[in-house]
């Protein structure tokens, strides 16, 4: 049985309230959901909360799964929507992410620290956060969660061509943001 069919079978059992099957579903998709949430929210506590929310929804609304897409696609869509809702709530609570990014720029004082892998990852994730919504989703699913382009297209309900174009534009914009980031650091 291929992994997709296996998830379908597991979800059928979850629909009947089978907790063991639910644990299996979490083992298969938990880390992926957590990584998407982390990519979007860039905050481990919020990512954890969203992952909890996603799996509670999966358990409660498993019977709503129509079977039009794969189980993983359905789960990723729930996750993306939960992340977007969380970002909206955050926007209402605190300042927009751009300001967070500016704050992070000022914290990069030591040029040698910039070369460190961790700092580089932080800069990259901050830059991803500044992308337009669709470009950000395509980049997170493709690179943070390593999903194949076809699956990204299915999750986003776009054609493969549209996703490739989003990724191309997303990368070009990332380059511009990183250049700006570097220029700001130089000025300091």
């Amino acid at each position, binding site marked *: 049985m291929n992994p997709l069919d296996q998830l379908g079978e597991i979800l059928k059992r979850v629909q009947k309230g089978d907790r063991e099957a639910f644990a299996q579903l979490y083992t298969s998709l938990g880390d992926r959901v957590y990584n998407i949430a982390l990519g979007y929210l860039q905050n481990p506590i919020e990512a954890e909360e969203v992952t909890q929310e996603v799996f509670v929804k999966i358990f409660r609304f498993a019977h709503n799964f129509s079977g039009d897409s794969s189980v993983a696609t359905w789960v990723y869509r729930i996750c993306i929507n939960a992340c977007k809702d969380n970002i909206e709530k955050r926007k209402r609570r605190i300042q927009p992410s751009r300001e967070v990014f500016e704050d992070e720029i000022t914290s990069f004082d030591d040029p040698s620290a910039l070369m460190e892998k961790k700092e*580089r990852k932080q800069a990259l994730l901050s830059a991803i956060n500044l992308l337009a919504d669709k470009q950000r989703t395509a980049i997170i699913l493709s690179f943070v969660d390593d999903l194949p382009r076809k699956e990204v297209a299915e999750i986003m309900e776009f054609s493969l061509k549209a996703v490739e174009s989003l990724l191309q534009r997303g990368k070009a914009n990332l380059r511009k943001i990183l250049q700006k980031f570097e220029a700001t650091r130089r000025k300091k």
Partner: protein
Amino acid sequence: MEKADQKWVEETLASLHNIPKAVAPDDLFEKIESKIDACKVRKLSSMQALGWAVAALLFLGLNFSVFYQSLTHLEDIARSNSQSAPAFISDFEIYD
């Protein structure tokens, strides 16, 4: 832009292809399960509340229906009494 800066930008962009993956915290599934249980308890208590509301409605409905029935019954008795009264009078007319 200086060459070194450009190099940093390109290297950072290239690191997009090998972003290290995070692992969900160990106790996350336990937290999810306890949330599901909490939802079930809430659902159960709301079902109980709904049950009480339905019972109260039935009780009130039955009471109202009994009250309404007794009212209409009294009206019927009064009507039949008033209809039978002239008959009594007409009975007395025989003796006139």
